[in-house]
């Protein structure tokens, strides 16, 4: 089975799709330690992204994932979960 990592590109697209927020993937990666609310993403927006990823990868993400404060923290948690589950 091929394990796909969730990238900043994918996160950027999800932020647009789930929360209507436009952020360039490069800028997202560069500012990966900035809090989500600095990009305008609220808690319901992050919850929507978690739900979309769970549906996309057919795997539950830990409850902490929707409490992540920054893109880096979020992607680290998501990718370690997906890798472990693969």
């Amino acid at each position, binding site marked *: 089975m091929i394990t796909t990592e969730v990238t900043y590109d994918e996160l950027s697209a999800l932020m647009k799709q789930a*929360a*209507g927020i*436009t952020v360039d993937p490069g800028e997202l990666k560069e500012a990966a330690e900035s809090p989500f609310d600095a990009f305008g993403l609220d808690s*319901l927006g992050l919850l929507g992204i978690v739900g979309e990823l769970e549906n996309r990868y057919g795997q539950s993400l830990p409850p902490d994932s929707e409490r992540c404060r920054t893109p880096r923290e979020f992607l680290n948690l998501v990718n370690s979960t997906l890798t472990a589950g693969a």
Partner: protein
Amino acid sequence: MSNRRSGRAAVTGIGVIAPNGLRTDAYWKSVREGLTVLDLIGRDGCGHLPLRVAGEVRSFDPADLIEDRFLVQTDRFSHFAMAAAALALDDAGLGGDPAEPYSIGVVTAAGSGGGEFGQRELQKLWGKGSKFVGPYQSIAWFYAASTGQISIRSGLKGPCGVVASDEAGGLDSLAHASRAVRRGTDVMVVGAAEAPLAPYSMVCQLGYPELSTVDDPDRAYRPFTEKACGFVPAEGGALLVVEDEARARERGVPVRATVAGHAATFTGASRWAESREGLARAIRGALDEAGCAPEEIDVVFADAMGVPEADRAEALAIADALGAHGTRVPVTAPKTGIGRAYCAAPVLDTVAAVLAMEHGQVPPTPNVFDTCHDLDLVMSRARPAELRTALVLSRGLMGSNAALVVRRGDDSAR
């Protein structure tokens, strides 16, 4: 701002998103000309339903006016409300970031919340499973959604609320905002917008015996006539900016009208004969609060339910409350050209009343060419008249009745 206050609530801004006009001036032009935009409902998924005619807001692209991050988490009724609120704030000279965010509050009235958004998410629930329902469903359908989103989007942190008191709640929200202003809030953004024309929302209305299922747009909604066969629904709405009159003068903005008096009563769902007394009492209460004699009323914007028993009750209520003046005062119902947008209907009527006073013209009642009631109903074309005071009436299907008295501001036609 100084502490000088007049105790009177002044209308200083108006924003309209209506089936017959996407801005206030376009709305007034259509209302004045008696244009009717009632048409067969063209929305996807609605063609098989027995409700055929409505007033749709067409050529409204929310993406032109509202940012994506607000669009994804809101229903169409909130799109209308946010767009109308921004227009009203601009009109009042209060666009952009507020200098004193805690001094501006928001109150809206809502009749059904976000049906289209709710339907989309419920279809995901039953079609794919609970994990496919988006989290914004939790807030988008809610009656209070528009108040919250206007507050967030425009950065308004004053007292906020939502009035859920049936269709007449549109007038109750204006009274609520006026009270907030009298109690010391500088500015209130107030009104209602509705979007009841998605399939799910339409099915919810099919049980109303008052709904017109006539499929001819010119004949579907003709209140006060022998051919009255119910009402047709509409979407859209209006938001107003209300502030203390003295403060408005200090800011140097035109006072377009003042909210002088209001009262509300309740007489039970679809009990139209009883609504006569309820509406008459509401009118008397509004006149009392305004310190207004019946003879001072220069025009009445009628509720115009379009159900024979309800029309009769309204005509009699006007006579009961205004006496002999009730048969002489011009009465109009411009909503026959656009339909009833539930809570937004009386707010749109209040806007029409303000514009009628500014322009000195009573707009006509489209599609109505004769009346079987003892009313001086304005038909066919606008009637020029010196208008200082207007009475706006509203009733809801669930039994609420309300009356609002508005007085002309200091400027005539702008």
